[in-house]
Structures are given as structure tokens and as C-alpha cells.
């Protein structure tokens, strides 16, 4: 009996003794993930608690953020200076687009503001947006059902070809404009930001108001862009979808290259 009892205990001891060398690392990693996850859950929880709609407190917070980060160029009351335009009446949509894609605050004056890592949290972007919206009526941040890509992709494609494709390329791959400006690629841009860009006309993009392209048509355009992004081209390699330049370069280098190689092989004397 005693022997029987002893042997499983021994076995257990041996098992614990022969722990895998990576077990400590795994445990550590698990601990870190758990702590990080718990922190993230906690912090988003507080953010959600704070983000009540368009309240006076949100506007006040936004005003503080604005005066600290934007007033240098746009003026203390967003009235505009020689370095930046007035923001009275641009609406929440313009702020959510410009700040939410990292274009504002601008890094430097140039042909156009470039996309870069976002400088504020989502909460702060909303506060800024509602502060600017409180200065004068302007387009609001669009509702979710208009930006989630649940529309008619075929109608969106026709409208995109007529209104957008000349600058943004028919597959949304972007294109060059004059004097260093360019129409950016629309891949990996959220539906909300595409909608806001159409309504507000950031930088040199023209404005497409709701009389020109109705909200439902805008939803269809977003649907088309999502469709193009999610469905690979039936033609095989897209080469960036930027058209004859990439395709021509490819065939010049690889097509002509292989022709030259074969010609050299045919005419070389056999070993």
C-alpha cells in the first residue's frame, strides 16, 4: 500500500521536476496578455462612459484641446489666420476626417496635408469635432447605416466612375494631381472617412453635397469600394491597379528581359 501510494507521488514529483524549459516564458506571456487585455478593457470602458453625445462638457473639453493643438494656425476661436482657414461652419465631419486620419494637426506646410498616425484618441477627436460643430452649422459625422457598405455596389461603381475615378483611379488606387498634390488611395480608408471626405471636400477635393450625390448614393459608392477591396481582380496580378505605368514597366523589365535572355542563350555557343 505504502509503496503504491509513494510511486504516483514520485511520478508527480518527477513530472513537475521535468517542466518544459519554455513554460516560464509561456506563463509570463500569458500574464502579460491578461494584464494588457484587462487594462485595455478597463480603459475603453471608461472611454465609453465618457463619450456621451454632444454635451456641453464634451464641447468644453474640445475647446481646451483645440486651443492647445490647433489655435496656432486656425486662431483661438477658430476664426482662421494667414496660416490656416476659418473652421466656422466646416462641421463635425470635417474635423473627424482631418484629425481622425492624422492629416491634422499638420506636420508642415506642403502641397497637401498627408495621412499620418492619428495624434489623438477617438474620444479626443470626437470632442474636437463637437467643439468645431458648435461654432456654426456644418455636416455631421454620418450615421452607421450609410457607411457600413450595405448598399448597391453596381450603382456605386457607376457613380464612382463618373465622379471619382478620374482622380482616385477606377479601382480606388489613387493618382497624381498637379504640383505635388495627389488623390490618395482609397484602400484601407474607413467608410466613415470616405463619406466625410465626399461631404466636406478636404484639401483640393471638390465637395459632393447631398444634392449632387445623395446619402444613399454615397453609401453605394462606399459599398463599391469595399467590394473592390474584398474581391480580387479576375485578371490575376493587379500590380497596384495603377494602370499602364506599372503594367508597362513590368513588361519592359520582365518581358523584354526574358526575350533578351532567350536570345543570348540561342546565339551563345554550346559548351
Amino acid at each position, binding site marked *: 500500500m505504502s509503496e503504491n501510494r509513494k510511486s504516483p507521488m514520485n511520478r508527480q514529483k518527477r513530472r513537475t521536476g521535468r517542466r518544459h524549459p519554455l513554460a516560464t516564458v509561456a506563463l509570463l506571456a500569458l500574464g502579460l496578455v491578461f494584464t494588457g487585455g484587462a487594462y485595455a478593457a478597463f480603459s475603453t470602458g471608461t472611454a465609453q462612459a465618457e463619450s456621451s453625445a454632444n454635451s456641453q462638457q464634451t464641447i468644453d473639453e474640445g475647446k481646451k484641446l483645440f486651443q492647445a493643438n490647433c489655435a496656432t494656425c486656425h486662431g483661438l476661436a477658430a476664426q482662421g489666420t494667414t496660416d490656416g482657414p476659418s473652421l466656422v461652419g466646416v462641421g463635425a465631419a470635417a474635423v473627424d476626417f482631418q484629425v481622425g486620419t492624422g492629416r491634422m494637426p499638420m506636420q508642415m506646410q506642403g502641397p497637401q496635408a498627408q495621412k499620418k498616425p492619428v495624434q489623438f484618441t477617438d474620444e479626443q477627436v470626437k470632442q474636437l469635432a463637437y467643439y468645431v460643430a458648435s461654432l456654426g452649422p456644418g455636416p455631421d459625422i454620418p450615421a452607421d447605416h450609410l457607411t457600413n457598405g450595405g448598399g448597391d455596389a453596381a450603382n456605386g461603381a457607376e*457613380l464612382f466612375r463618373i*465622379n471619382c475615378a*478620374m482622380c482616385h483611379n477606377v479601382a480606388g488606387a489613387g*493618382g497624381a494631381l498637379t504640383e505635388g498634390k495627389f488623390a490618395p488611395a482609397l484602400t484601407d480608408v474607413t467608410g466613415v472617412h470616405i463619406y466625410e471626405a465626399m461631404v466636406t*471636400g478636404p484639401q*483640393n477635393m471638390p465637395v459632393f453635397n447631398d444634392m*449632387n450625390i445623395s446619402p444613399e448614393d454615397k453609401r453605394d459608392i462606399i459599398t463599391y469600394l469595399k467590394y473592390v477591396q474584398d474581391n480580387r481582380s479576375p485578371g490575376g496580378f493587379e500590380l497596384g491597379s495603377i494602370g499602364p505605368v506599372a503594367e508597362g514597366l513590368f513588361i519592359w523589365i520582365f518581358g523584354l528581359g526574358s526575350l533578351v535572355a532567350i536570345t543570348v542563350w540561342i546565339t551563345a555557343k*554550346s559548351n
Partner: protein
Amino acid sequence: MAQDDHSGTEIAAADSSHAAPAASPGTALIAPDSFENPGFPPHRPRVTDEDPKREKRAQRTVYTLFYLSILGSVWAIAAYMLFPMESNNVGDVRLNNLFIGLGATLALLGIGFGAVHWAKSLMYDVELVDERHPIGGSPETQAAAVKVFQDADRESGFSRRAVIRNSLIGALLVFPLPAVVLFRGLAPQDQNPIELLSHTMWKKGTRLALDPSGAPIKASDVTMGSAFHVIPEGLQDLEHGKLDEKAKAAVLLMRLDPKDLNELPERKTWSYDGIVAYSKICTHVGCPVALYEQHTHHLLCPCHQSQFDVANHCEVIFGPAKRPLPQLPIAVDDEGYLIAQSDFTEPVGPSFWERH
């Protein structure tokens, strides 16, 4: 060296001045530079000539390539059956094209590479000189050829029976005429092409409508910085020639701050409160110009980078276009909709024979 050259030319000059030179004057010049014909480089046998094992291997490679070609052809047939294009799924088209293409490529490249490898490694390997010979034949050959023609002429009576000959020449001349008439049929019938190129669907009072829906546009809809793609109202209902009309009548409508707008004195009445309408057809080769930058007011043509300045009556500021874009004079009707005051006052689009 320089002295030698000098004496050489002197000799040549002296030779040519004498009417009957012993040698041609050129030889005196080039003689010192002439070199021996080096002949062929020494013959270098290939490994397949010396090593029977290598020869066997090359032989194996060649017939393997030919067998691969057979395999490729068979695979192309099989792929045609295995990956049909019958469903409307574009993915199937891709698979069908891909696998048939791979089979056909293997079939062709197998034959090609096999043949070249065969010739290079196994076929008879010896250097030869293929001497050039004069292009003209010997006098006898030439005389025989002339005789053939003369005999043919005599036997057929081509010169003697002038009526038959001339009617044949006539038949050959008339033969291409149906093709000319058929090609003429592609052009507009019973209409002056210059007239057609000079006028569009726009008339006095035609409402400006949205492309593609055809909904009329109110002046109040066109907010600052907007760009509307415009067609004449009624274009969508055309039975025939819709695209032909659209290709001429397409218009871009923009609203600028009236302060930014620098209008020609005679065109002061052509805009409405900063709203201007310009032809979308480039005056260079007719691409649609619609890349509008709302702050610089520049219009860029994507085909050849012509730039037009909308603030300055669309004058050309860069690129190969020679004329500004034609402006459509617009006004507002009683109900607030934008209407055309008239057609374009000049032909839209690129130059043609009668317009430069």
C-alpha cells in the same frame, strides 16, 4: 604619324591627278592599316562531342522537353474541359484562362527549347563561311528571264489585245471602290461633319442635369467648392446616338468664390453667382478633363497633363492643349434651375481639319 598621314594623302592626290593610275587611289591610303584575315578561331569541341555520357544526357533532355510539350497540349485540352467558363463566376474565367494558358505555354516552350537545345548540343557542329555572291544573275540568266516575259506577252497577247488589257486594268481599279463606299457609310450621312462637330445638344433653355440620373440641378444645390458632372436634360431619353451626344455635350459645373473669378468682359453674363460651366472635352485630343482642384481652381487632363485655370476663363497654363476649354453660358430659370443660355459658342474638343 601625322607626317605619314600627310605623305599618304599627297600620294593619293598625286595619283588621282594622273589620269591613268596603276592602282586605285584608295589602296594607297589604306594599305598601311590593312590587316590579315584572322580566319576562324580554333575549333572547340563541345562536351557532348567528347563525352558519350553527356551526349546521352543531352539527348534525354531534348526528348523530355518534347514529351513535356505533348503533356502541355494534352493538359490544355483537359483544362478546357475541367475548368469550364459556363457559370457566370469571374473566378471560373480566371481558372480557365490560367490553366489553358499554362498548358499552351508548356506545349510551345517545350518544342522551342527542345529544338534549340537539340541544335546547339547534338547537331553537326562545324564552322562554315557562307560567301556573299552578286545579286544580279549572269547575262544569260537575265536574257532568259526577259525572254520568258516576251514569250508570255506574245502568247497571251497582253500588248496586242489592248481592249482586253485596258478593261482588266479598269476592273482592278474599280474593285476597291465598294470598300471606300462602305467606310464612308461609317461617317454621318447627309449631314455636314463640320456642322456636327461644331454643335452639341445644348440649346437655349436646356436645363443642366446630373450625370447619370438626369435630374435637373438647382443653382442653390451647387455649394461652394462643388464639382457637378453635367449632361443636358433629355440626353438620358435619347433613343439613338446617346453616347455620341454625351461625348460632345459633357460639362463640368463648378462654384467658385466670385472674388476669385476673373471673367472676360464679354463673358460677364455667362456665369451665375460664381457658378461656371465648362466643356469636359479636352481641346488637345478629347479626353474628359475632370480632375478639378477646388482650392487652386486648376483642371487637369489625365491623358497628357494639360492644365486649365478655371478662375481665368479656363486658359491653358500647362501642357499640350492649345485652346482654353469652351465655356457654356448659363442662367437660372423661374423655378431656380440652371439652364443653358445657348449652345457652346465654339466647337468643343480637339482641332479638326477646318478648325485649328
